[in-house]
């Protein structure tokens, strides 16, 4: 187990000085949780607490991540620390995969097990005479009027194309970084962000369309539930990914990253590709089949 240092002679291990970032984050999440509870129960002042929590959270992230960028550019991170970052990002993405797995599991369970069960002879005879084992399905007790699911080959197909292209432009930007072609890096990052933002715009338009014309809502039974929760959490992750890419672009413009030392960029790229893969699964199982 050799330890190769960067030219700046970074310490073998990096142990940061005592820090107030974590406690700031804890206060932020506490306010966020409390504010959410109050808001959801329509107690006055909830929105204020929630907003305060978010503000403190953004402040914490801005200062903490800024500090990490500073330490990285200051050469405090040895190769060994870089390996730690790589392990941690990989495991973090794994935890995200498992979070999505819960919702995909809910979709499969509803389609494959709950629907046929609700439409079984016993249930039809005793509980739900109208129940049918069809998908999409808003359940035998649904009374929100007819709805039609989102077709796969309109906006969702375009969105698939957008995200796949953004994966290519991001890799192109990475090659620019590796070959110290900063122009290619900036353009590639910009294109990736633009594609992500257009994706989100289409997604918003699709939601509006679904609400106003297709009559597919959060309340449209289990179909509406899995549709909005899966695509919604994915959209949230695209938003987070695009925000991180904007931060990376700002750092690039500030002259950060070198062909040898740019894990900040790579971590965000990993995250972006993960979000991309989740979309492909969504496209197939939510929209297509």
């Amino acid at each position, binding site marked *: 187990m050799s330890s190769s240092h960067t030219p700046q002679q970074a310490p073998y291990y990096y142990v940061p000085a005592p820090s107030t970032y974590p406690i700031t984050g804890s206060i932020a999440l506490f306010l966020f949780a409390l504010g959410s509870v109050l808001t959801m129960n329509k107690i006055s002042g909830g929105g204020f607490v929630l907003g305060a929590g978010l503000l403190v959270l953004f402040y914490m992230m801005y200062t903490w991540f800024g500090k990490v960028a500073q330490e990285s550019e200051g050469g*405090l991170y040895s190769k060994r620390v870089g390996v730690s970052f790589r392990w941690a990002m990989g495991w973090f993405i794994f935890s995200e995969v498992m979070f999505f797995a*819960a919702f995909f599991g809910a979709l499969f369970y509803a389609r494959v097990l709950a629907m046929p069960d609700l439409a079984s002879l016993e249930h039809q005879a005793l509980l739900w005479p109208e129940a049918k084992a069809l998908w999409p399905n808003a359940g035998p007790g649904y009374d929100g009027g007819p709805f039609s699911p989102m077709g796969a080959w309109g906006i969702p197909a375009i969105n698939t194309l957008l995200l796949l292209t953004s994966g290519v432009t991001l890799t192109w930007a990475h090659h620019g970084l590796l070959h110290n072609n900063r122009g290619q890096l900036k353009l590639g990052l910009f294109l990736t962000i633009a594609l992500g933002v257009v994706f989100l715009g289409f997604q918003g338009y699709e939601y509006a369309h679904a609400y106003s014309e297709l009559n597919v809502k*959060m309340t449209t039974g289990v179909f509406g539930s899995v549709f909005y929760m899966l695509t919604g959490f994915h959209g949230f992750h695209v938003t987070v990914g695009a925000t991180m890419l904007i931060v990376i672009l700002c750092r690039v413009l500030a002259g950060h990253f070198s062909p040898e030392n740019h894990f900040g960029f790579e971590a965000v790229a990993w995250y972006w590709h993960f979000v991309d893969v989740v979309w492909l699964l969504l496209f197939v199982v939510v929209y297509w089949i």
Partner: protein
Amino acid sequence: MAAIPGGADHSHDHAHDHPSGFMRWVTTTNHKDIGSMYLWFSFAMFIVGGIMALVIRAELFQPGLQVVDPDRFNQMTTLHGLIMVFGAIMPAFVGFANWMIPLMIGASDMAFARMNNWSFWLLPPAAILLTSSLLVPGGAAASGWTLYPPLTVQMGIGMDMAIFAVHILGISSIMGSINIVTTILNMRAPGMTLMKMPLFCWTWLITAYLVIAVMPVLAGAVTMILTDRHFGTSFFNAAGGGDPVLYQHIFWFFGHPEVYIIAIPAFGVVSQVIPAFSRKPLFGYASMVYATSSIAILSFIVWAHHMYTVGMPVAGQLYFMFATMLIAIPTGVKVFNWVATMWRGSLSFETPMLFSIGFLFLFTLGGFSGLVLSMTAVDVQLHDSYYVVAHFHYVMVAGALFSAYAGAYYWLPKWTGHMYDEKLGKLHFWLSLIFFNMTFFVQHFLGLAGMPRRIPDYSLQFAEFNKISSIGAFGFGLSQLVFLVVVLKCLKGGEKASAKPWDGAEGLEWTVPSPAPHHTFEVPPVVK
């Protein structure tokens, strides 16, 4: 970001501007400080959850309703479970991990010291949310710690507080586990190969993997409850095409590995203590690693044995029954190895060893009652009875808690620099052992006779055993104060501990002085 500090900005150059007093603990990035905070926090939560258990046992002391109304009773069982699992046992073992893993693998600290601090400081907000929910209109969540819908979809604001507390606890334990995995995989001293690591590190590596895999699944499950409650979704509503049983599948996909998240670090501690007091290396080290890994993998594919009574195809029942029984094999390997480690060893029975042997007997008993419950036909009779309560308290209390005590007594000299009071330690063990069995052994009989759990009243024929159990519970609760006295005495003074107070102990943690200095292994040791 114009001003970029030079490469000389090492942390130890900052030693002079370290905050002191309370802010030292709030801002610390030191794994030993953070480990100590985890251990104290978990003990405080153990007392809080223990008081809730005593409220339950006081109510069950005799038939009829005397102490609390049934709704409060349900809130007590719910919060007792949530607090003990997420607030007491898990943080206790994370505390051990923080303190001991860097010392055992020869690292100067955890891989991400600031994130380590955050993992800890997320616990108090979650604890505040959980405990203060007792005071809001409608009271705390009263559904049992499993939070099954449709009950949880109908409850009041306390349920929302529990959901967000679970979210925050999940963030905390995922970050803590990413830190542990990274530390173990990347921060080992030169020469410390994976198969040379102390078994405690192995068990934590596997546990951390389980945490990262299943805590997000729990987050998904409680998020679905939240949206069903407030945003009109129908995940768990049959009229909307959902299914309450879906929740149980998702929950137990988390919940069964969670059982091993609690048990596996306990295996790790015992695997350090038994060799030390047998003065022999651990028997079958490699097989211990493989057995632990097998238990972790099997834990993902047995979840529905918690749900035999909700309705399942016979093929499903058979599969989950046999898959569950398979777990007995790697567990048997481990028990065999612990016993074989003691075989012809030069045994001595200090408190850590006593707790380990107590663990060995009682955990095995809990494992056997688990094997009984794995049989579908039997479980349909015993489901949600006191037999189940007895079973999991044998593995949670006599398993995890006894092992945590074994670890605490074993490493107290390293942490404090003093030997603890051996007489008081032994008193603590014997009182705990006797009262534990008094509390929980009789609950097997109650369950077999048909007493349901989570009900504040019971039929008259259960009165005697409940009386015994309640007396035992109060005895057990009070005996835990002996431990507090031991720790406080040990912190204040006592016989000076040498670097290696246990002559049979092995490992890098015993090469540093006692108490372990604030910074250790700033230059990594070389392991041959």
